[in-house]
């Protein structure tokens, strides 16, 4: 076997992986992107703890995970945007347009949360980017 062919054979799995990442349909069990405000958040804030419990920036993707689901597990009300979430209550907000949204949020030390909604991944590079982001956990 020539050196060129050996290289070609070695590259095939990587090519197959790229083909899959770019062309295979994205399958997810739910369109909900769940974020929970844990019990004790308010108490930690009062004690001066500025650690962010939720990410300050959340990226959603239309047609895949385009529903923001916030759950308040704290024992006091929390405000998200114009909505007051009572203890144990959840807020399920679907998005239908690619956009960047800024919400006031009392669960953040900065007092703000940004929700970026990206277009539906239709083209191969968009699917690759979505998968890469999922694998990297961001």
């Amino acid at each position: 076997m020539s050196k060129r062919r050996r290289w070609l054979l070695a590259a095939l799995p990587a090519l197959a992986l790229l083909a899959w990442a770019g062309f295979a349909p994205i399958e997810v069990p739910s369109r909900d992107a769940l974020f929970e405000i844990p019990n004790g958040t308010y108490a930690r804030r009062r004690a001066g703890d500025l650690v962010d419990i939720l990410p300050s920036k959340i990226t959603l993707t239309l047609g895949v995970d385009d529903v923001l689901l916030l759950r308040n597990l704290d024992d006091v009300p929390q405000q998200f945007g114009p909505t007051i979430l009572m203890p144990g209550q959840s807020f399920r907000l679907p998005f239908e347009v690619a956009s960047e949204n800024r919400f006031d949020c009392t669960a953040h030390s900065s007092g703000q949360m940004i929700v970026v909604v990206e277009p539906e991944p239709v083209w191969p590079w968009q699917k690759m980017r979505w998968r890469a982001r999922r694998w990297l956990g961001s």
Partner: protein
Amino acid sequence: MNRMLVRLALVPLCFCASAALAASDPVTPAQPATALKAGVLSPAMPAPELALAATDGKPLSLARFRGKVVLLAFGFSNCGEVCPITLTTLAGARKKLGPEAGDVQVVYITVDPERDSAAQMKKFLGAFDPSFVGGVGSRAEIDAAQKSYGISSNKITYANGGYTIGHSSSIYMIDRAGRLRAVMPYGRSSDDFAHDLKILLRS
């Protein structure tokens, strides 16, 4: 032999590509037909009660409108941009509902009690839909209403002494039983409102 190996190795690649091309859309669960386009609060809890004066001369409380779906929003009559868009959208949504519009009540509460009298608000709202009811009151009463719904507002003063007010612009959707069911962000269409109102009216 080597050529055969290469061809065999190409099989999975071609399979992957062709299968993916045949179904390239994301495979995700469809949203149920009963899903609201607004942000839904779960479990739904009683909407905070209002203790204001209404532009129709009566006291303004949500209990008055029990049995109807209430769309509640905050704004002011001198608002040049956000409020007219919101009110036009809500009036459009009511029109799309046809006879069912009678079971939908729009309540619009001022965030500018210093300038918005009952007469002023009535005139302002009537230009969009005469069925709209405004809420007015003292600064303390308005502050209490804003606080109970998490509404923020800030006064922006101009060099000439005039001012405008930046304010939260979402619309609260309250069901026939007086429970705060959903919050529609600013900027959604009258079609979105009509869609959600039909669901709330039938639930």
